């Protein structure tokens, strides 16, 4: 048969078969050329791709930066994951744009500059000098090779040069600065009528029909939110501790193990004479200090003076470079090791040491007293020992039990019973709660999140073990669920009344203020209008933008208004923080005196303007550069 195939497999038959084979190979083979090795990119900028790995690294670094900046109290809005991811992606895209532009344009820093940047980075320094070992270790920890890190740094230094070159070189001319200062220090004279809000609120009345209509229209806002009850197992080392049985024997051996905790080590008190070495000392200074200290020591040692006499004399004379005094009680580990060794080498009270060198200088030490080591007896500390023993034992048991809890709650996802029996725990029941949580275990966000999670709420399974605190684990499951429900009108009536009255009063006062404004613009006298509309007329002279005692809403509006022209005041309405309305008339505007503006403030303002302008120009530059590339981002792959 094979021979037959061979014979036939020539001419058109063969070509047809090959032709047919080409089709699937062409179609199914081709995509592997485009997908590369199957690595997904989060974005592509021109020819450069941003891989998921690179994105993740940048994202983690950003998170760490934020955490370092705010410690434990991060504003949750800052940690809005999606927003942060988008921002990080945008940054990466801009980086790639700038990288390609810099390369094409010929921006590249020299080896020397690169070396300076690395050596000057404080993270790579130990005691103020560059540490090559530390450098390599840190790079390794971040997953960089030296070569790739240095290439990356070189690139970012070059783009930083571009940024600095544009953003730090913006111009602000003196004339322009004068103009802005004139505007900033401008003074305006105002006459304004304040209409108080309270009477409007009192007068506002609401019909029952309006309340009902509002209730019907806004039913969605008056819902009792979805709520649940859960059953849970609560395992904590703290609770276990209460059930640990203790014997006198165990406690005594535990006490022996921990005896160091119940002992106070020997303490010594001392005085010293210190010949200091200046912090910025020159080569000869150390020898000079040493000689001086030796001289003092010799006078004491030879018996010419006692230590006390020498100390008193120096205390009275106060020569520069010498400090004397009583150091009080010293425990081991408090002071410089050299000092400590010398102090503990002294045998009896009153002994004086030779000059000892520490970073501060040369010390002559006198031992003033010894408080011997003291150990508390078992009976004295029995209570504390019991507590610690229990805590220690509970912790060990906790780890075993937590493992059992994890296993059993996972093996029997439909019941807490097996785990409860194995652990000897009681299944507890929570009260009703919604997504806001509640008290006790409901105060833990993890518990609330788990209670409303897909697994627990929809599938009715055990939650995974929730470690709410160290050594404290909960497993929960749904007991009862209630959908969101409309609240009754009676329950929300007061809220609605308040809301409607406020709305009505706001509308009325706005109308009144507007009428007043129109009449004032038409030329009505403010004094008379104030009387007519139940307001009070006030005047304010030489009001400035900042530092005025007037309500900030009034000042803001007064300076938002155009300048009065030909003695015709500019008039507008402002809403104050407490709901009062104010009709404001700017009667006069005097430009500020530029020459009175303090020089340092002028300098600061010039800098601020230049900075803002430079930054805006740089951002425009980046925006324009972005348009040079085809940029594709995949927000769904973040």
């Amino acid at each position, binding site marked *: 048969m094979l021979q037959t195939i061979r014979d036939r497999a020539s001419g058109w038959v063969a070509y047809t078969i090959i032709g047919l084979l080409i089709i699937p190979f062409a179609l199914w083979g081709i995509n592997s050329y485009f997908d590369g090795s199957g690595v997904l990119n989060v974005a592509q900028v021109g020819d450069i791709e941003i891989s998921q790995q690179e994105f993740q690294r940048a994202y983690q670094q950003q998170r760490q930066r934020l955490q370092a900046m705010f410690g434990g109290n991060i504003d949750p809005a800052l940690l809005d994951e999606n927003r942060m991811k988008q921002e990080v992606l945008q940054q990466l895209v801009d980086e790639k744009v700038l990288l390609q532009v810099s390369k094409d344009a010929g921006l590249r820093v020299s080896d020397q500059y690169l070396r300076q940047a690395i050596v000057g980075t404080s993270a790579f320094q130990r005691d103020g000098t560059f540490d090559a070992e530390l450098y390599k270790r840190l790079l390794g920890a971040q997953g960089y090779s030296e070569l790739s890190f240095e290439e990356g740094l070189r690139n970012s230094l070059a783009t930083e040069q571009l940024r600095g070159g544009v953003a730090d070189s913006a*111009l602000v001319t003196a004339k322009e600065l004068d103009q802005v200062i004139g505007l*900033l220090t401008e003074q305006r004279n105002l006459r304004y009528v304040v209409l108080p809000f309270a009477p409007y609120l009192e007068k506002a009345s609401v019909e029952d029909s309006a309340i009902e209509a509002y209730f019907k229209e806004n039913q969605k806002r008056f819902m009792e939110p979805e709520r649940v009850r859960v059953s849970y197992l609560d395992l904590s080392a703290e609770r276990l501790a209460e059930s640990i049985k203790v014997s006198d024997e165990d406690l005594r051996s535990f006490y022996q193990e921990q005896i160091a905790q119940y002992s106070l080590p020997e303490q010594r008190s001392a005085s010293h004479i210190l010949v200091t070495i200046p912090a910025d000392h020159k080569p000869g200074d150390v020898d000079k200090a040493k000689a001086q200290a030796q001289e003092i020591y010799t006078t004491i040692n030879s018996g010419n003076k006692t230590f006390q006499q020498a100390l008193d004399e120096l205390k009275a004379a106060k020569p520069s470079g010498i400090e004397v005094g009583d150091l009080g009680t010293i425990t081991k580990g408090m002071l410089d090791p050299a000092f400590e060794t010398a102090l503990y080498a002294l045998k009896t009270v009153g002994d004086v040491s030779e000059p000892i060198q520490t970073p501060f200088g040369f010390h002559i030490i006198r031992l003033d007293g010894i408080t011997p080591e003291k150990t508390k007896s078992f009976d004295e500390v029995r209570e504390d020992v019991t507590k610690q023993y229990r805590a220690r034992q509970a912790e060990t048991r906790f780890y075993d039990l937590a493992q059992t809890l994890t296993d059993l709650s996972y093996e029997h996802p439909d019941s807490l019973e097996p785990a409860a029996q194995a652990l000897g725990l009681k299944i507890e029941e929570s009260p009703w709660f919604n997504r806001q949580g509640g008290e006790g275990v409901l105060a833990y966000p993890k518990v609330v999140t788990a209670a409303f999670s897909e697994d627990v709420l929809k599938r009715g399974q055990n939650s995974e073990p929730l470690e709410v605190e160290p050594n404290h684990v909960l497993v929960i499951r749904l007991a009862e669920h209630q959908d969101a429900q409309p609240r009754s009108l009676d329950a929300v009536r007061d809220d609605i009344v308040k809301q409607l009255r406020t709305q009505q009063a706001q509308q009325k006062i706005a109308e009144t203020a507007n009428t007043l404004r129109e009449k004032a613009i038409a030329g009505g006298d403010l004094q008379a209008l104030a009387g007519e509309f139940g307001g009070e007329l006030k005047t304010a002279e030489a009001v400035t933008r900042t530092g005025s005692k007037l309500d900030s809403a009034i000042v803001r509006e007064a300076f938002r208004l155009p300048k009065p022209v030909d003695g015709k005041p500019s008039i507008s309405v402002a809403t104050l923080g407490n709901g009062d309305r104010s009709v404001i008339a700017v009667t006069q505007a005097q430009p500020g005196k530029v020459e009175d503006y303090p020089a340092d403030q002028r300098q600061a303002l010039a800098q601020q*303007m230049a900075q803002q302008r430079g930054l805006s120009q740089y951002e425009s530059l980046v925006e324009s550069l972005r348009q040079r590339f085809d940029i594709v981002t995949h927000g769904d792959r973040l």
Partner: protein
Amino acid sequence: MENYTDEELVETIKQWWKANGSAIIAGIAIGLVVIFGWRFWTSHRLAQAEDASLHYDNLLQSLTRNNAADALRQGQELFDDYSGSPYADLAALQLAKQAVADKKMPEAIAQLEWIVDHADMDEIRDIAHLRLARVLLDQGRLDEADKQLTSVQDQSFNVELEELRGDLYLARKQPEEARTAYQAALSAGGNNFLQLKLADLAPPKQEK
């Protein structure tokens, strides 16, 4: 296929080599020259860029040390030997800023004009146009400033462009046009100082 004896085959190859050998050698030679030439060219470009960067960095350090003469010298070297490098443009931007701070307006104008004539990057040239307009406005050379503004190409710079237009109109005592320009700047993104300038203008005519 025709059948050759060994000798005939050798003879044929020799013939063929005579006809085509020099062409092949020339081809290989050209290929090698192109490869090495390209490598030489790229490494030369990198070295040039690094040198220019070093000069620029020195210039910045001279400026921080308030050594204007040295900064100018570094800048001149960049303009003479690296005129195609963006570092020369950045240097001119920095020197122009220093000149304005020292109230040497003609020098600032010269620096910025150098960028307009030499810059490779359109964006840098646009920035130079904007800054030049700012300095010319300060000098009261309004028509020249106007010309600089019309030379700005990229729409990305609209905030600054419209603000400068407004300032220019104001200098020409055309407050209505100035307002329109400031408002355009504000709607393009704006900055803190635009509101100040707007509030200082007389009210628009239709509201009177």
